[in-house]
Every structure is written in structure tokens, then in C-alpha cells.
């Protein structure tokens, strides 16, 4: 099995790009929700890679993991949004750098 066949490689490139975009987004954006969306983007890029690998190896394990990742992402969204909302209620602000009571 070779990772470097053209079709596989192009899918992986997209996946890697998405992951990089997500990472950069996480680091540069300050809006809590956008940062969270970027993390979701990273997760989804992994999903793409997983599906590709699953196809490549012709076995379902990777695709199975994708479903679980989607579930986890949904659950994370629930928890994350709840946290963001409670912050917004208290501060009317979701800039991630404005929550810094704790430091040093």
C-alpha cells in the first residue's frame, strides 16, 4: 500500500491544508466561537484523512472512527457553546484574551 498514489496524496494534501488552516486560525483569532470553529475544522480535516486511509486500506476501522469523531465533535460543541454562553452572560464579551483573571 502506498500513501503516495496521486489520488490518495491529493486527498491528504487537502486534509493537511485544512489542518494547518485550522491551527493557524486557532492561534490568530480571538473570538471564542471562531477559535472553536477552527478546532472543529482541524477535527474535520482528520476525518477526511481517516476516510482516505480507510479507502486506501480497504477496511472500515477508519470510517468507524470518523463517526465517533463526529459524535465527539457534536458533544464538544454542546459543552463549548454552553461555556461560551455563560461567559457572554457574565461579561457581554467573548474575546478569549479578555478572560485572564488567572495568571502567573
Amino acid at each position, binding site marked *: 500500500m502506498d500513501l503516495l498514489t496521486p489520488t490518495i496524496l491529493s486527498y491528504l494534501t487537502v486534509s493537511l491544508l485544512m489542518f494547518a488552516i485550522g491551527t493557524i486560525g486557532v492561534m490568530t483569532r480571538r473570538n471564542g466561537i471562531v*477559535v472553536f470553529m477552527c478546532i472543529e475544522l482541524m477535527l474535520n480535516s482528520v476525518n477526511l484523512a481517516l476516510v482516505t486511509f480507510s479507502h486506501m486500506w480497504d477496511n472500515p476501522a477508519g470510517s468507524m472512527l470518523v463517526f465517533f469523531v463526529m459524535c465527539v465533535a457534536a458533544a464538544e460543541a454542546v459543552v463549548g457553546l454552553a461555556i461560551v454562553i455563560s461567559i457572554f452572560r457574565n461579561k457581554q464579551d467573548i474575546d478569549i484574551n479578555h478572560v*485572564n483573571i488567572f495568571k502567573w
Partner: protein
Amino acid sequence: MEALLPLVILLPLLGSALVGLGGFLAPGFRKNESLVGLIATAMVAIPFFIIAAAFFQFDGTPIQISLFSWMQAGDLNISFSYEIDQLSLLMGMIVTGVGSLIHIYSIGYMHGDGGYYKFFGYLNLFIFAMNNLIFGDNFVVMFLGWEGVGLCSYLLIGFWYKDMPKAIAAQKAFIANRIGDFAMIIAMIMVFNLIGSLNFSDLNAAVADGSLGDNAMWISLLIFIAATGKSAQIPLFVWLPDAMAGPTPVSALIHAATMVTSGIYLVARLNPVFSASPEVMTIIVIVAALTAVVAALIAIAQNDIKKVLAYSTVSQLGFMFMALGAGAYTAAIFHVMTHAFFKACLFLGSGSVIHAMEHMHTVEDPQDIRTMGGLRKYMPATSTTFWISTLAISGIIPLAGFFSKDEILTSLFLFDESAFSIYKIVWFVATLTAVLTAVYMTRLTMLTFEGKERFPDTKHPHESPASMTIPLWILAALAVVGGFLGLPYLIGHGEFHLLNHWLEPVITNNPAIEENASFGKEIFLILLSTLLAIGAVFFTRNLYRKHGLAADAKVKKAFGGLFRVMEGKFFLDELYNAILIKPFMSIGNRALSWFDNNIVDGAVNGSGTVVANIGESFRKLQSGLISNYLLIITTGVVAMLGYLIFG
């Protein structure tokens, strides 16, 4: 008999738990001083009698006692096992014997103190730890005791912790000991790595069959460094004088008779390792000689009765290490024993004096010998026993100190045959120190007990109660007869050196000493040290009898510029402050300021130096900003992957 031996270890622990926890939980028990004292004393006295019985029934084969297996990791098996042999029995007798006396003494001395039960709880715990140190047959049990005595010492020095200097003295002792402990840990790691076992017997066997090679040197050096902490040698001895902040019985028990000699005990226990590394022996003998003479010089210029005794202890420990350095291990143990007798007696005597001075309320500092004088009239028992011990430590024939000290001096002199060698210099320094010892001890005793009273209130000083004077008499008696256990080689060619015969199976002394011995040299050495000691005592006595306190000025003049250095304790505390503590603190502060907002802010605004800039960037590590955290994580990931792929 053997069935009783575990009690030696367990009873003090039980006593500590009973007294400490009982007092803590039951206020009624706490107030019952006599019961507390009785239990605590019994828990040390019973082990003493057991050890004594074992001592006299001992048939020459070491007894192994294993309480339980502590941990087993692969090929390493460490158990709470103890070895009863000649050396540990002797040390055990000293520790529990002197310990019992000091317990009895403390019953009177600590009377009325709010922490009475706590004091005895700690004291029993100390005996437990010390017994572990002595009887343990492997490094781990020994180290447990080693740390334990350190902890008890810390607790007892800081016993009156509400007084800030005393709490600080306790910390100083703790830190100095930790430095030594670190060396001990490294030594243990080395030993385990080299021979795969932490048993003393295995280590000694490994030296014997030569499998240790050069490593013996490193191990012995590390153990010696550890010993400089616990046994107060240069450069770590500074904690011992400060440790006098603890109650006086503690000074007598821990900081004179037992704990501080544990370094010497350990070296003697591992004597094959040390004998196999002559370089380290030379280091030991030099360090010890320096310690002895420096401490003796400082002692001359001190006016606090306990400080004089503390420096004297440091100096005498130097003597013991000199003996070790010459390979005369038996002489060192001999001196440990005699020193335990007379120094405990001196400390307890000083406690008795302080007790009396405290009752007068008119004296500002109850420990200052300048405000004493003429106490013999009021405290005959204390003064007589104090005099006996002073003469013993000064090396007056035929008291205990004479024999042990003479043996050390002889060993140093006979170490080699050349007329001018390191050991000859050390011998000279040691002889000089012996003279100084006689001088400062006589001065101390003269100023305390003789001459006119220098305190206004002549009604109040009174002798201490019997519970305090009886231990004094017993110790003084031991200080008189203790020396006969080791009559010099001269008499019957070592036939009557009982201690030597007793310890022969476990200790191999440097054979060169015996080979180099000749009748003429020995007679010369004995006469020399006898004459010097008697001369020094008489000279000092006459000086102080004639001039009283004013004699100090004459002494000061005699020493000239050196006296200021002696008074300032060779400025070692200041030196350490300047070269170690201050830089450390300032570096520490600077490093810490990286993490500390306020300090860095000040520094940045003020100077903008490189240091502050680095500090600023460090501070950002934990800025509280999520973005920064994310950035740091990503940087970490990138760095890690970069190394993994390209590194």
C-alpha cells in the same frame, strides 16, 4: 535474649507515639508530667538494659534481626533488618545509656514547660531514629535513621519556635544537613549501581575483593561530605553553634553525644571502603585538623557558656575525624565514647547553671559567663562534676579524655616515619588544639564557678534538684573511668586495650601505626601531651584566678589581631552570606522575578536590562491569555516534530 532485641528499635517508637499522641489527644495526660517523663525514660532505659545484656552475652557472631521486608523490586530486596555486632552494640550502649540519663535530667529541666509532652515525644523519636541509624544493616534503614535524627534535631532546635532566631537556627541546621544528605543519596545510588545491593556487608565485601576499584574513592568522598553535614565539619559546621538554641538537654544528647557522631560511626562502619582510598583519608585528616583548630580558637573568644561548649564539640569532632583519617578507627570510636561522657556532663552542667541563672531574673542573659562567677559556693555538685569533665576533656591523666586523645595523637604521629609529612603537620596542629582545648575549657570553668560573683543577687542561685544532679554524677564518674577501656599500647603492648579487642572483628585499623610504634616515641608522646595539658590547665587557672574577668584582656592581647577573627567566628557566617547566600538569593530573586509581576514591572520600568527582558519573556509563559497558551502549545508541537523529523 535475641527475642528481646527488636524491642530496642520498637520501644522508643512506641514511647514517642504514646507520649506524643497521648499528650496531643488527652490534655489530662499532658499535665501529668511525672507520668510522661516516666514512660519516656522507661522506653529508653529498657532498651539500654537489653543492649547491655546483649553486650555482655555477645559471643562474637553478629546477630541478624529482620523485622519485615520493606520493598522488593526485581533483584533489590530491602528489608528492615538490623545487625547486632560489636560496633553497633557499643554505639547502642552509648546512645541509650547517655540517652536515659538525659531523659532523667530533662524531667527536672523541662518542668513546667507547656510543651513537656512534645519534648519527650521528640526525644523518644530521636532515640528511635538513632537506633535505626546504628543498627541498620543497609544504607536504606541507616538513611531513614539519618534523616530521622535530622528531622528530630530540626524539631528540637526549633522547640521554642516562637522565638524567631531559634526557628531560623533550626532551618539553618536543616539546610546544612540537607546538603550533606544529597551527597549521601548520590553515594547510595553509586553503591547500588556498582554492586547491586545496599547492604553494608556487601559493600565492604566488594572492597575486599577489589571489584569496586577506583569507585571506592568516590563513594568514600561522598560519604565524608555527608558526614561533614551531620558531624559538623568544615565547611558545613556553622549550623552546630546556632543549634544551641534548643533546650540544653537536646544540646547534650543530640549535638554533643550522639547525632553529631553518627558521621564518625558511619565511616567506622565502612572502614574497608575508606582504607581503600588513601586520597580521601588525606582530605579527611586535613579538613578535620582545620575544623579542630578553627573551632578551638573560636571557643576561646566566646562568652556564651553553651557556645563555648558547642565550638568545643566541633573541635572534638575534628579530633575524631583526624583519627579516622589516620585509619585509627578504634581511636575515633573510643573518643566518641569518652566525649559522649564528658561533653554530655558539661552540657548538662551548663544547663544546671543556666537554670540557676534564669531563676535570678536580674541577669539579662542567663548564658553569659561574664555575669556568672563564684557559683561553686551555691552549686557544689554541678561545679565538681563540671570540673571533672573539664579536666577530662583537657586530657589530664588519668581521666577518660587523656587516653582517647592520646591515642589519636599517637596514631597521627605514627602514621608515617618521615619527619615532615602532612600527617606530622596534622599531628602538630592536633597537639596545639589539645593545648587550646585545655585553655578554653579552664577559662570557661574558672569564669563560671570560681572567683567573685559578678551578679548582684547572691541569695537566689541554688543547686538543681536531684533528678538533674544524679545524671551529672554518673556522667562525671564515667568521665573518670571511661578511659581505662583503652589503655595505651605502651602498657602490655595493647594487651589491655579492651576496646581494641572488642572491635577487632569489625574494624581493621591502619597497621602502619602499630608497625611504626616504638617505646621511645610512645613515651615521648605521652609525656608531651601530659605535660602540655597539665601546663595549659595550670597556666590558665592561675591567670584567671589572679585577674578574674580581666584576664580576658590579657588573652586578647596575646592573640593580637587574630583575636578579632576568633571573636567574629572567623567570619564564616559572613563569608557564606557573601559568597553563597546573597548571590544565591539575588539570582534566585531575579529568576523568581521572571514569574513575578510586581518585581519584573519595577525592573523593566527602571532599567530595561537584558535580564529584565529575559524575565519579561519568561513571564509571558503564563500570561493568562489563551492565545499565548495556544501559541506555546503549537510552538511545542512544531519544535517536537521538527526534532523528530530532522533531528
